[in-house]
């Protein structure tokens, strides 16, 4: 009797616990921390006050860790009451999980975001403390920090300036008889032919790497697209990848088949970077952000950037593509905001920004920086040329972006442009609905 009563009591206890947990689970999304941190009206940023406490700096650039550590040492020397800890996640993870990690006050007092979808989500979640009206904004080149603003408010400061266009081995180009970048599509194909004739792989392209195979798309569409917002229009349904201009782009991808390395649709970024660094390829179809990596592999040749102009010279609106990313911001929930803001100001100082640029091989958007790094100096003329803000990052939906980029990979792999476009459009239509 007693034993049966005990069993019943125990079952009741377990049942009650289960029910309790079930009800707690059913409290629903938006309950708990989601509702408190989800406010769309972030608090004002505390720019003054004691610079004290440990600042968590969340970012994805493990390769910059040492350079940033040196800068942090200098910052702590200036502000002995403060410290900075780097919280680094691999870029793929950061893309997917950063918002959830920085929403509390424990991680990311200062944090970074990718331009585009991630930046917009973080703004929507109210995590960026607005920077409009603070002195730090004036330290940046106004025309380059647009991707960190929304509806007239500056939320973040894109720190890095990169050129998402093919990196060229100018020694190889010289040997192929090209001292100037071709100004039209025929000229570009001629350059590839000449490189091939000299024994080079004309265009090293990482078709097997989802993250980098799409970089080439930026320059392939910059002059073909009917407007600068073409990819936004594809995502909103106002344009289609089956439209003539995109089919033309895919046909031009098909024309590149003889010029990319053999079996390019399976190549990783590491492999093509090696191919280029060893002087076996004329062009590397990724971007200026690879310069430091190529140098690390022992390349001695000089660099330039060469974008395929996919139209006639007269119809070309742009010579290349740039992107500003690594969007720095201060967390609206940070408990050490004055210290976080001071660190942001420190990074935005031209001398410190220059040290970051030289150490990492990336241009920066800070005004008045003088580069000491020879590669950065060599590409400096591109800072004032006719370049378009990389259109690839107009895609906010990863599935839509993957569908479009995969169409280009499929075409290089042998698929007919029309079929690749139709398959991509089908996914886009489904994801939009």
């Amino acid at each position, binding site marked *: 009797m007693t034993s049966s009563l005990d069993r019943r009591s125990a079952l009741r206890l377990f049942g009650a616990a289960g029910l309790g947990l079930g009800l707690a689970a059913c409290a*629903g999304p938006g309950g708990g921390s989601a509702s408190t941190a989800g406010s769309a009206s972030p608090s004002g940023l505390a720019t003054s006050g004691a610079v004290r406490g440990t600042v968590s700096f969340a970012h994805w650039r493990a390769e910059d860790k040492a350079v940033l550590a040196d800068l942090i040492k200098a910052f702590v020397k200036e502000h002995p009451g403060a410290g900075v800890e780097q919280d680094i996640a691999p870029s793929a993870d950061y893309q997917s999980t950063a918002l959830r990690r920085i929403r509390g006050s424990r991680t990311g007092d200062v944090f970074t975001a990718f331009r585009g979808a991630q930046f917009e989500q973080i703004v929507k979640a109210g995590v960026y403390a607005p920077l409009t009206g603070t002195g730090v904004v004036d330290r940046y080149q106004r025309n380059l920090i647009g991707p960190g603003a929304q509806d007239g408010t500056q939320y973040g400061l894109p720190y890095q300036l990169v050129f998402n266009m093919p990196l060229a081995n100018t020694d190889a180009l010289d040997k192929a008889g090209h001292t100037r970048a071709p100004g039209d599509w025929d000229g570009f194909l001629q350059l590839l032919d000449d490189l091939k004739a000299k024994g080079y792989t004309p265009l090293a392209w990482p078709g097997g790497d*989802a993250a980098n195979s799409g970089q080439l798309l930026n320059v392939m569409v910059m002059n073909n697209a009917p407007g600068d917002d073409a990819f936004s229009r594809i995502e909103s349904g106002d344009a289609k990848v089956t439209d003539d201009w995109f089919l033309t782009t895919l046909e031009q991808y098909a024309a590149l088949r003889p010029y990319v390395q053999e079996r390019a649709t399976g190549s990783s970024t*590491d492999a093509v970077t090696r191919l280029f660094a060893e002087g076996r390829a004329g062009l590397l179809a990724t971007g200026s952000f690879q310069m430091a990596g190529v140098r690390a592999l022992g390349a001695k040749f000089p660099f330039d950037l060469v974008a395929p102009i996919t139209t006639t010279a007269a119809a070309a609106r742009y010579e290349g593509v740039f992107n500003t990313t690594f969007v720095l911001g201060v967390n609206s929930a940070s408990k050490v905001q004055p210290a976080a803001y001071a660190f942001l100001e420190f990074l935005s100082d031209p001398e410190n920004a220059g040290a970051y640029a030289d150490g990492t091989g990336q241009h920066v958007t800070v005004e008045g920086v003088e580069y000491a790094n020879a590669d950065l100096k060599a590409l400096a003329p591109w800072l004032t040329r006719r370049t378009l803000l990389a259109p690839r990052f107009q895609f906010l939906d990863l599935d839509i972006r993957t569908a479009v980029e995969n169409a280009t990979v499929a075409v290089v*792999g042998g698929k007919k442009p029309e079929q690749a476009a139709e398959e991509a459009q089908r996914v886009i239509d*489904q994801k939009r609905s």
Partner: protein
Amino acid sequence: MSSTRSGRRRRTARALWLFPVPALALHLFLFAYPVVQAVQYALTDWDGYSAAYDNVGLRNFAELATDDDTFANAAGNNLKLTLTVVLAQTALALLLALWLVRTTRASTLLRAVFFLPTVLSSVSVAFVWRFVYDPDGGLLNSALRAVGLDSLQSVYLGDPDTAVFWLALTQVWFHAGQMMVVFIAGLQAIPKELYEAAELDGAGRLTRFRYVTWPLVAPATGIVVAYTTVQSFKAFDLVLGLAGNPPGPALDILSTRVYTTFSNNQFGYAAAQSLVFMVLIALLTWVQRRAIGRATR
């Protein structure tokens, strides 16, 4: 005296009920709670961070079933991966176990060699195999070129028709050694007398395998198949390591699909995908266990 004994027994019985409490509490907190929460999310269009959301009923599930080629593609890839890995890994692990079941110095060394990949992290394995599969200068194509078999060189992960099978090969290399150990344990538990009796009855090697080894190693086979199935569905980090994030359609499997949907901040829809994913694993494991039960009866 007897009432004292019965009182002690009652106290013991009561105490026995307390033993499962920690495990049950953990199970409720770590499994039941998230599942209930996932069900609740799956009925909403929550984006993962906003306070506002709408209840959409079964719309997420309807969309999954009828209007999502990416999910259907991932499910198809996963099915191909699972079937290939289950068949190849089980067969290879059993063969290795039969070969190495006797404990000698050489077999102990070989067991360690075959088990070694299991202790590596998925990221390391992906890194190594990315180099193996690289079409230009990768290990496989270089080896084929070296022996004059240039025509067999392939693009491997870059071929949308075969990429998933190359992924399966990596997965088998990664885990076959672990499953071999399970089979060895199962084989060593079979009484030697049964083999001796079968031999006396004139049974040959194959007959002994068919009527002694196969039925008696069935429990181990069941474990291997169930574990391999779950493993193939969860080959998440290996895929991201080999193909990048998000992977292209050729290597997208259900776990990476759910992750991409989460990354797109479609929490409600991703929760629906997760639930379907969970049900599929359970269903496939159940079907396999029944099939193995029948085959070894």
